[in-house]
């Protein structure tokens, strides 16, 4: 077996490639730790993964299958030595439940049968065959690539995660302006945007992005997709006029275009000043991914979907608000931006709910709705302080990159863990998919884990073991009670709120209906590279109160229409609403509330919980950082990785100061130091070459809409 070739000694062994584990892997590898990162699945990112449509269908089947399978290979026992005892790990994933697929698209009534036939294997975005041919593979050869042997089942999996192949010069990483020509991914590049983003006209984003993508798609290193790239580009750029949509999208069509889908198991966005974005920038991992602005915030109110005005430009442009409402809303939001400075305004309400507080703020009913459900996004019972904090966070995230506080990674949220894996691999981490750890080897005396025995029966010693919660066996949990997340994934034929531009990424907040939880809906357009042109991919998420279908079907039926059966009257039915083509419901375990003390594990075994239902990824990031600090208390967490373009060699003037003369341009004026910085600042503004010295002094975030 090929995995025999694995080195037998590592500093850190990490099991599971979800976001938390991947961040830890990158952080450890970055500071020189020898990292072995494995996942029992044949794809990256665990429950954070993205699938093509066909991949998802196959994955659903396989997921159901694996529940029955149980292995009982006891070969590992002989690897144990005197004074050691095993701690067995779970080989089956039980974190998802109540999987339910409903196909609305015409073709057949028996969706299950129809579905399974054309599907090959449960590949995540990258089919193995394509992977091996990929020329981009050699771009950044991690040590793992040569050292790590292929796993027995599926050829080598140890190459850097696939995020790499989109690492083309056309990317927009979060550290750069949409259409800046330079590839500046340093921190000060970010600062550039912070000022520019505010000034960026709404329209231009819309125009620039798809174009850029088209470039990325067309010119990038031969995409993994086997379909002809040119055709794809043309199609994705098509505005897909209404007539085109009239043509019914069949399941066969979706299957045929299945590779255009990147369906996330967890649906999240990135707060543009949230911990994940900050980490992406700080660590320079951002360069492995591209992002798009979430272009609008919508909400469901009085039976209708409407746009939430949240930025200054939105409020100004809003057609639904009266001018007085505009003033009231702006006044309230301005107050929230630095509410700590005006304690007199809210101190009386600290013990009361945010909702009650809003009632006193002369806000009309729709404004109250917007603030509570779409801006603060807190439950109606939330305290005033919590509501104000959430509102402030939302507002502070506005304007950094665009008109909403959120970013979405192209190709789906599943990209993000892979980006961190790639960073890990670049710094020497070794990757094995379809490879797991059977048991930990505990030293009886110290109670510490000194080694692991992998699924190939190989013993690998390590100092630290990081594991995703789902791998822990029942017997090591002491009465742990999980929460659940209810999820629905829908494919629809048009946007919930059609607008001039078809290509919108929308966050739709649905307030609690009839006592249920608030549901967060993310609607993705095809230019987000998560669905085929002419369709929209819709994610619904809420904390569970029942099964996913019980929780979410009522919301789905309010927002979407089921196509009429048997072809009569099609299109007439509820023409106001988008039509459902396909739906998947499932529950995912939410282990984030569980305390470490709820597990009986050795002290050098660190647990990573799975995803939570929140919109951002802050929990995963703070957990990763805290695990890292326990592991390596003296090391910095994810210091910036040097970007080859950023390295300023001795004696060489930084780029961007012109053809070698720089600031002595007006030497007679006896310019002081200030003048020089000024000049740098100006060239920066024009997104010029990197100046790392500025980068380290990243100023504090400025409030949005500042002049």
């Amino acid at each position, binding site marked *: 077996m090929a995995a025999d070739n694995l080195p037998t000694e590592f500093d850190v062994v990490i099991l599971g490639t979800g976001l938390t584990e991947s961040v830890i892997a990158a952080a450890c590898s970055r500071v020189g730790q020898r990292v072995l990162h494995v996942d029992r699945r044949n794809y990256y990112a665990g429950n954070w993964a993205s699938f093509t449509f066909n991949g998802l269908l196959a994955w659903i089947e396989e997921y159901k299958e694996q529940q029955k399978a149980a292995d009982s290979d006891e070969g590992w026992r002989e690897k144990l030595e005197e004074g050691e005892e095993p701690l067995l790990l779970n080989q089956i994933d039980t974190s998802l439940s109540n999987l339910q697929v409903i196909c609305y698209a015409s073709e057949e009534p028996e969706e299950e049968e129809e579905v399974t036939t054309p599907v090959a294997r449960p590949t995540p975005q990258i089919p193995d065959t394509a992977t091996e041919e990929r020329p981009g593979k050699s771009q950044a050869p991690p040590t793992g690539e040569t050292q790590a042997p292929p796993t027995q089942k599926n050829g080598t999996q140890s190459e850097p995660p696939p995020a790499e192949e989109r690492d083309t010069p056309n990317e927009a990483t979060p550290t750069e302006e949409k259409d800046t020509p330079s590839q500046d991914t340093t921190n000060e590049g970010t600062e550039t945007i912070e000022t520019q983003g505010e000034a960026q006209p709404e329209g231009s984003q819309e125009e620039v992005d798809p174009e850029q993508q088209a470039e990325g798609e067309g010119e990038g290193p031969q995409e993994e997709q086997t379909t002809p790239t040119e055709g794809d580009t043309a199609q994705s750029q098509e505005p897909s006029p209404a007539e085109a949509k009239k043509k019914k999208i069949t399941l066969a069509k979706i299957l045929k275009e299945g590779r255009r889908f990147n369906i996330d198991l967890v649906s999240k966005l990135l707060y543009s000043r949230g911990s994940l974005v900050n980490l992406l920038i700080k660590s320079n991992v951002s360069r492995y991914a591209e992002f798009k602005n979430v272009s609008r915030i919508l909400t469901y109110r009085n039976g209708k979907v409407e746009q939430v005005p949240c930025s*200054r*430009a939105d409020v100004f442009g809003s057609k639904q608000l009266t*001018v007085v409402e505009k*003033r009231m809303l702006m006044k309230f939001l301005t107050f929230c931006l630095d509410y700590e400075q005006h304690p007199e305004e809210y101190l009386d309400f600290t013990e009361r709910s945010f909702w009650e507080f809003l009632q006193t703020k002369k806000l009309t009913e729709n404004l109250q709705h917007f603030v509570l459900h779409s801006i603060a996004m807190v439950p109606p019972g939330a305290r005033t302080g919590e509501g104000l904090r959430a509102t402030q966070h939302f507002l502070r995230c506005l304007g950094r990159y665009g008109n909403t506080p959120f970013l979405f990674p192209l190709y789906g949220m599943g990209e993000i863990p892979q980006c961190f894996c790639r960073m890990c691999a670049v710094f020497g981490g070794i990757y094995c998919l379809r490879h797991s750890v059977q048991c930990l080897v505990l030293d009886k005396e110290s109670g510490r884990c000194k080694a692991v025995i992998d699924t190939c029966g190989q013993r690998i010693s390590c100092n630290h073991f990081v594991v995703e919660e789902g791998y822990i066996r029942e017997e090591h949990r002491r009465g742990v009670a999980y929460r659940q997340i209810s999820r629905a994934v829908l494919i629809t034929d048009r946007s919930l709120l059609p607008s001039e531009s078809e290509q919108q990424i929308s966050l739709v907040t649905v307030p609690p209906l009839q006592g249920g939880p608030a549901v967060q809906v993310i609607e993705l357009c095809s230019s987000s590279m998560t669905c085929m042109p002419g369709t929209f991919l819709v994610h619904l998420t809420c904390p569970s109160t029942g099964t996913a279908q019980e929780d979410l079907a009522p919301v789905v039926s309010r927002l979407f229409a089921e196509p009429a059966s048997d072809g009569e009257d099609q299109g007439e039915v509820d023409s106001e609403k988008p039509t459902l083509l396909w739906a998947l419901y499932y529950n995912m375990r939410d282990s984030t509330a569980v305390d470490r003390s709820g597990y009986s594990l050795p002290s050098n075994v660190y647990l990573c919980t799975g995803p939570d239902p929140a919109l951002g990824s802050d929990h995963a990031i703070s957990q990763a950082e805290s695990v890292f600090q326990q592991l390596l208390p003296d090391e910095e967490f994810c210091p910036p990785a040097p970007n080859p373009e950023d390295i300023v060699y001795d004696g060489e003037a930084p780029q*961007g100061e012109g053809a070698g003369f720089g600031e*002595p341009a007006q030497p007679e004026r006896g310019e002081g130091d200030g003048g020089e910085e000024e000049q740098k600042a100006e060239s920066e503004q*024009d*997104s010029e070459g990197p100046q790392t010295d*500025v980068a380290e002094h990243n100023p504090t975030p400025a409030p949005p809409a500042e*002049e």
Partner: protein
Amino acid sequence: MHGRVKLKSTAQQEEEKRKEREKKLKVYLAARDACFNKRKEGVMDDEALQLTQQLLSSNPDFATLWNYRREILLHQETVRSGDEVQKLYEEELSFLEGCLKVNPKSYGSWHHRGWVCSRIPQPDWARELGLCDRCLSLDDRNFHCWDYRRMVVKLSGVPVNQELQFTDRLIGSNFSNYSSWHYRSTLLPLLHPHSPEPPSPLRQPRPSRSPEPSSPQTHSHRVCEEQLLKEYELVQNAFFTDPNDQSAWFYYRWLLGRAEREEMISCVFVSREGERVVVAFSRPVNALAVGLVLVVDGQPLQVDWRSAHPRFGHSPVWICELPPGTISDTSNEHNLTVNWTEKHTHRDCALYTGRSESWCRDSATDQELFRSELSVEKTSVLQSELQSCTQLLELEPENKWCVLTIVLLMRALDPLGYEKETLAHFETLKEVDSMRSSYYSDLCSKFMIENTILKMEYAEVRVFSLSGKKLTTLCHLDQLLLVTHINLSSNQLQALPPQFAMLQCLEVLEADDNVIESLCGLYHLPRLEEVSLRNNQISRLSDLKPLTSCPKLTRLDLRGNPIIQIENIQSELAELLPTVTDLLL
């Protein structure tokens, strides 16, 4: 740049930087000298192009080098083929793009780019517009780029409506942008010109005026009403969203504003006594240069026009003395005409038998002179605008822009009816914006004077009383040409300005209880008899000197002024002002 953090560096870094700078300076100076030498020798070769390029890319504001570069390019045009010239200029544009990246606000680079675009055989305007868009998306207030863009638009003939959409887009993304609003104000009149017919009902009842469309307020730069209403809505959205943003308010003022008044002769006054003719114009002119001709009884007269005060080259009031005996006989009737040849306009005035004086004029009420700077749009429109602003004021009681706009709207609607509210608003303004309280005082004074003029004209009297109104300044004095009695007592005036000399009919002046120091406006007032200046700040004898030019002055009250402390003041004054018989000290 705004809000950028500057770095503090250590002494060592400082030193390194200094050395590096010195090194660069050396290279730079050498290149510069080489360039200058080449230019002196008249060399126009490729090397010179390269040298200047090198220098300019690091210092794009070196105007001499740009000039040299243009000389070289012009020369190259003559020696290269058409295609080569095209290529040369295209390279120049790419080079300039680099310069603009270094400094997007370089005058030199933008100007040179404009020049290149005027020389290049086949300009690519789309590329230029794209460049402007990029630049403006980085800094939407870069006026260099705005200027350049306007030039490109003009040369490439971008349709006006497309440009209006462009401003829509920029304003939509960030309305704190004077450039966009201003651009709009130049585009709208082109796209939606105001049609003078039918005249708005407000202006109809004016039989005394000539009905020709060139009435003072229907001049160009106006926008049709339908579009105006849309603009009001747009701009209201802006100032309700952020009432502290000035740009929207300024645009709003422009929307409400009216065109400049037509230049015309607004009044001709004739007096037998002194045989004088006084002409008032709607705006200051230089009568000596505009071809002003006085015709008396059909005979053009050679007269010397002088402005009301020697300090004015341009003045709204001009005076001339007729040759002695021309109109002195009260038994004769005379017809005078003042021709303004330059403007092809004139005004007649008949001096009847037995009358000592006569005039012909448009009154301020006729001209709606004081409808502030606001428009003559329908009252209903202004009324609804006033309502919106009042609504905003309820939400933002301390917003100065809002209060000021309300004041202006009230002026436009009914200056006298809203006088009380206006005064109250001015008090608010002085409070919330104390830095500009003097400005508000002056503005308030102006409005009070306007109101008093209106009242006076409605009453058809020549007495002007404005006591106790907290006036800080005097204005519209040209409108007081016919006033005989003026009472300015109990105000806060510091001076009687030179414009005061326009009160050519003034006989009695009361200005007690002010803080007047200067009387320079009491100059050549031929009829002035009584001057009361009790409790003012006149302290020197020389301050009273202007009074010597007023031949009829007989009564002067200076009680309560510092000047009375001067020794021998009585005799000094008697010597200075021999005509004064009634001197009160």
